[in-house]
């Protein structure tokens, strides 16, 4: 007693698959080789990724967008600058950026 599958030769089955691929416009890939098509088929994720955080409009951003035509006084920024000035007057400002290796404090500490 033979089953239906064994009665049909493998070459006939392959021909059937090829015909099916031609009809349904799929690629004929009998060995299931990885073609990398899924990386091209998948949707791009970047556009939705950059939209995760809600857009925030700050005073600084508005001033930058208007290219100096419209200006809003940035009170927080002014306060920050006056605070820095006050600290500098008292000699408590941030140290100057090291220009050379020798000025760098990290090198001194390592020795």
């Amino acid at each position, binding site marked *: 007693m033979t089953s239906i599958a064994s009665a049909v030769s493998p070459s006939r089955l392959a021909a059937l698959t090829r015909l099916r691929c031609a009809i349904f416009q799929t690629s004929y890939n009998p060995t299931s080789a990885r073609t990398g098509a899924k*990386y091209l088929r998948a949707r791009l994720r*970047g556009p939705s*990724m*950059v939209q995760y*955080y809600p857009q925030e409009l700050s005073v600084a951003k508005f001033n930058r967008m208007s290219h100096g035509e419209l200006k809003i006084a940035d009170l927080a920024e002014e306060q920050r600058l006056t605070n820095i000035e006050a600290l500098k007057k008292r000699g408590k400002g941030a140290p100057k950026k090291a220009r050379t290796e020798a000025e760098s404090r990290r090198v001194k500490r390592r020795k």
Partner: protein
Amino acid sequence: MPHIKARVFRDIKARNGVKANEVARRAYLYVARNQTLPPEVRYQAQLQLNTFGKYTRPTTPKNRCHESGRGRGIMSEFGLCRYQFRLKALHNELAGVRKASW
């Protein structure tokens, strides 16, 4: 967001990097994973993939809390961490969210 945290800035940077490099990365991925191409070509494509920085990889960005920048305990439907979610829900700022009571 009253005070944007540095980690959120870093995350935004990563998201922009992913978007900018996504097409090129996909092209290299296609070549590198394609078994019908010669191995030398696939290897070169893989080497090119390795030259992309960490801020171009789509797995680098992490969903952080919109309000506090916290990276853990995020409720993805609202983009908020559990504490900010609770605060906003109690102030009736989240539509359809009520405190359970029975």
